């Protein structure tokens, strides 16, 4: 093989390998980062450490809660209050009800989503059941807690925020027994 072929071959193979690594290791984190920065897709951040309280009592925002089950998830799952009215900056606790209606021990994971998209960055959770997975034994019931604060910088155009949870069955994924998790 001529040297000129060999260098070109090496360069092109390197390009192909680089594009593969780009697709697997760069694109997914880049996508997550992009969604996080822009709030596209209604993603909320992880655990929020409450800072100085500056409650904006001049403003009232309605927060609605939606709970849904993914695919064939058989649990009963609903918010115990469907909507609350809060002042931005005020810390508020609400509960969701979950009931494993099956005869099997199961593990669930709730995935949050906030609408409108431009509110996602201003919806802070100081405590949330969605930070961990939720193991429930056969027939067990639980009240799942959420404490949230709406950021006082919430855009003025937002008067209603909807937080939705979708509950996924991750029993197979965890591969652990209930006792191990609890």
């Amino acid at each position, binding site marked *: 093989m001529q040297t000129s072929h060999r260098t070109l071959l090496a360069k092109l193979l390197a390009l*192909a390998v680089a594009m593969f690594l780009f*697709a697997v290791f760069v694109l997914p984190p880049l*996508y997550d980062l992009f969604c996080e920065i*822009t709030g596209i897709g209604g993603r909320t951040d992880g655990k929020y450490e409450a800072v100085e309280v500056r409650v904006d009592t001049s403003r009232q925002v309605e927060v609605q809660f939606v709970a849904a089950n993914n695919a064939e998830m058989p649990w009963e799952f609903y918010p115990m209050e469907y909507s609350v009215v809060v002042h931005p900056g005020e810390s508020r606790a609400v509960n969701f009800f979950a009931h494993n209606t099956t005869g099997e021990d199961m593990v669930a994971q709730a995935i949050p989503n906030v609408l409108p*998209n431009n509110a996602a960055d201003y919806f802070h959770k100081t405590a949330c059941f969605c930070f961990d997975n939720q193991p429930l034994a056969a027939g067990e019931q639980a009240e799942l807690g959420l404490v949230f604060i709406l950021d006082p910088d919430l855009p003025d155009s937002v008067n209603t925020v909807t937080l939705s949870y979708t509950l996924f069955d991750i029993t197979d994924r965890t591969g652990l027994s209930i006792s191990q998790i609890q």
Partner: protein
Amino acid sequence: MAHGPATLADGWVKYASRWLFTTNHKDIGTLYLWFSFAMFILGGSFAMIIRAELFQPGMQLIKPEFFNQMTTMHGLVMVFGAIMPAFVGLANWLIPMMIGAPDMALPRMNNLSFWILPFAFAILVATLFMEGGGPNFGWTFYAPLSTTYAPDTVNYFIFGVHIMGASSIMGSINIIATVMNMRAPGMTYMKMPMFVWTWLITAFLLVAVMPVLAGAVTMMLMDINFGTSFFDAAGGGDPVLFQHIFWFFGHPEVYIIILPAFGVVSQIIPTFSRKPLFGYSSMVYATASIAFMSFIVWAHHMFTVGMPIAGELYFMYATMLIAVPTGVKVFNWITTMYKGSLTFETPMLFSIAFVILFTFGGFTGLMLSIAAADIQYHDTYFVVAHFHYVMVAGAVFSGTAAVYYWLPKWCGKMYDETMGKVQFWIAFIGFNITFMPQHFLGLAGMPRRYADYGLQFADWNMVSSIGAFMYGAAQILFLFNVVRTITHGKPVDKPEVWEGAEGLEWTVPTPAPYHTFEKPPQVK
């Protein structure tokens, strides 16, 4: 094999080893072309099953589950098995002869890149006979349909895609190395035939995006078997990410399919117009800009995922911008024909049909690029009609034109012109009867990928199916004509088969000898 290629007279073993171990670009080109035709017939028979089921409303012939496998396999086999290998075959045959090179730059890799392809498709097609059936999630294999809800055979599908991706990458590296390093003295870049230019650009697209496809299926494989959650919301992943990655590959992929077709037509139209190609350099720049823009418009395939308005507007305007270089190309083809001494041999007929029908498909593409309208058209038969106008009347028509145009050079015999023209008119009319009504069905709201439909769609579906059978019959005639040319064709002996043909491939004897340009020609 300095003594020439083994023939059947040397015995089966020698003859089979010739094809298995060949490193000759003409042999490998021939293998690619026959393989792609076999896949074309296979993918076509899947299409016939689809159209037969859709002939009347209600379920007649097959089960809906099998219907889904048919639509998926039709797409996969046609895109990866028929169209792409056909153009790689043409590249193998023609690029060394067009640039005055003795062979491809990396002949042994050339052999490997062809011979892994039949295994990829054997694996893919074998899934149809396995428990759970073949892939049934559409050729775009969106997660979670292709992960959480996929049949177990999806792992075979993933393996098959990996192999065909490796084949494409090797094939395109070979083409780039050949074009960049092996041009005859005096053959500068701006003197290369348009077909070589379009393939050089296509090869770069392939090297850049086939690994992305490999990455996408690898992530699927990890999600299915190793507990990751790239595309699984339950584990913090996102199914929409799959669509972004797929179309980051998929949009350049549609140009990978169509750019070599542009190249073929840019060779044929000047020959039968007896005029040089109008605006050669603008053709080159237009091809390069189409290739560049193909990387920045992918999300126009996913206007309905819930993008912010700024994203929709960006992808809409960027997509519309592609119409500009494409318009330059169409303008140049028409201007090449303007005031030319036109004759209408079969390759020219297919090329003119290409220009007309591809432009038509381009216009429906512009309609689909309007984000607000696309939300209405999305996933309807309007989309199916659009991409068959650009894929079939684009890529397949130009491939057919290429075979008729260069067949006399390849085998030294002339095809039957009357049979060619009959095939053209059956194909042209059959194609339009098949796909024109699908625009109406789509605008009326018929969704794609369903085995059944409402009664209001019955009439146009029947018309469409009749057209499809006609178009299918034309391909049988095509096969017959090619085989008959090889066995009974009238011998051609002058190097320049066509009166107005320009280019180095027409300076070698007809049929092209096994080895050409062992001494490089001098290009002025």
